[in-house]
């Protein structure tokens, strides 16, 4: 087999070496496996980094008590309960957002609020098909979300989640506009 030498940061090479020993693998096979996975991801038009990031986000969401169910079932449950329980449901989603905000602030303190919000929307809020987040000169953060299939009830819950997330990151809600499948939120740094 044709072998070549590759320069790697020494601290990374050492960690890989330790890993290989622990797993009873050669460094050569461990490194080759990582490159093979890179190629697999690329062949499917994906980035390995994004896939790993996504895995971390979903693992965190599971720790926060998130699970998967078919959207049609979820929407029918919300629709039937929202009238009498809407307030409590919105509060539960807000708390879930808060928990994830605190979690990521702890494990990855360098993440900006914008990149964390993007990561969570992409990673777990799958009903949102379009999402933009921007920061104004005055520090205000604006989020725009569109989820064509979301009824007003579910849209309200998603907005509560994002509000909870931003509160955990030290931002308070400045304004909100919510209509069926559309969320516009702006946040100011809490004083």
């Amino acid at each position, binding site marked *: 087999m*044709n072998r070549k030498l590759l320069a790697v940061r020494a601290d*990374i090479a050492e960690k*890989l070496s330790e890993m290989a020993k622990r797993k009873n693998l050669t460094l*050569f096979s461990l490194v080759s496996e*990582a490159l093979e996975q890179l190629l697999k991801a690329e062949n499917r038009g994906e980035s*390995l980094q994004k*896939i790993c990031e*996504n895995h971390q986000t979903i693992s965190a969401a599971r720790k926060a008590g998130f699970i998967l169910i078919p959207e049609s079932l*979820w929407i029918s449950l919300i629709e039937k309960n929202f009238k009498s329980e809407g307030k409590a449901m919105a509060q539960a989603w807000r708390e879930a957002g808060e928990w994830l905000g605190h979690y990521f602030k702890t494990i990855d303190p360098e993440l900006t609020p914008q990149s964390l919000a993007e990561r969570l929307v992409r990673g777990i809020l799958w009903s949102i098909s379009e999402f933009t987040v921007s920061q104004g000169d005055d520090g205000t953060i604006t989020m725009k979300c569109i989820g064509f299939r979301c009824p007003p009830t579910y849209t309200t819950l998603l907005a509560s989640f994002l509000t909870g997330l931003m509160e955990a990151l030290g931002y308070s809600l400045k304004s909100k506009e919510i209509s069926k499948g559309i969320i516009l939120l702006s946040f100011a740094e809490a004083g």
Partner: protein
Amino acid sequence: MGSTKRGDKKFVAVRGDLLQKAIEISNRRGKSFYGFVNEIFEQAIKADEMDSTLPEILEKYRFIETLRKAGAVMVTLDLLNYCLDRLLETQSKSLLEKWYEAGVWYGKYLSAKFENPLEALTKTLNIYFWEVTETRLSSNSDGTATLKIIAPNQSQEHTELLARFIEGVVNSLNYKVSRREFWRGIIILELVKRVFPSDMESEFTSL
């Protein structure tokens, strides 16, 4: 070993063909190759820190994407249980029907996406679905198959809903449930492959 500084480099041996392809990818992205490979290996280290491996993460990602495209959503379990328990008191029949229909649709989706949809079902259930901690599919000598699902935290009512969902899936995959048992958190289904599709079966059996 302990005195390594972040700027220091070491050489590792890799397969030449993989190296060549990785160089092409980094060129396509306009990144320095050195920075690019370090990022890749950092991902392998992170995966290890999460008690996983890159192949496992890629496999899970594939199934998660399948579920996402099938219209699954992530919701908080507490809230799901809360909503379900309120409705189960008064509308259990219609909930069971809805769960069954959702299962039928999901089965059709798996058939369209995978060569072995039954195996894909067990993998997607195993990886992330609704509190399931263990799924086993085994073939029996008489040609039947047994599907066992364990979700230890589920109540009796929620187990029944999950069982209906699974029955919907296997029926649309052209299996008949010949034996069905469930207790709180445990579902056992014995499956027989249908000779005819379910909607034609009654016509043929009556002939």
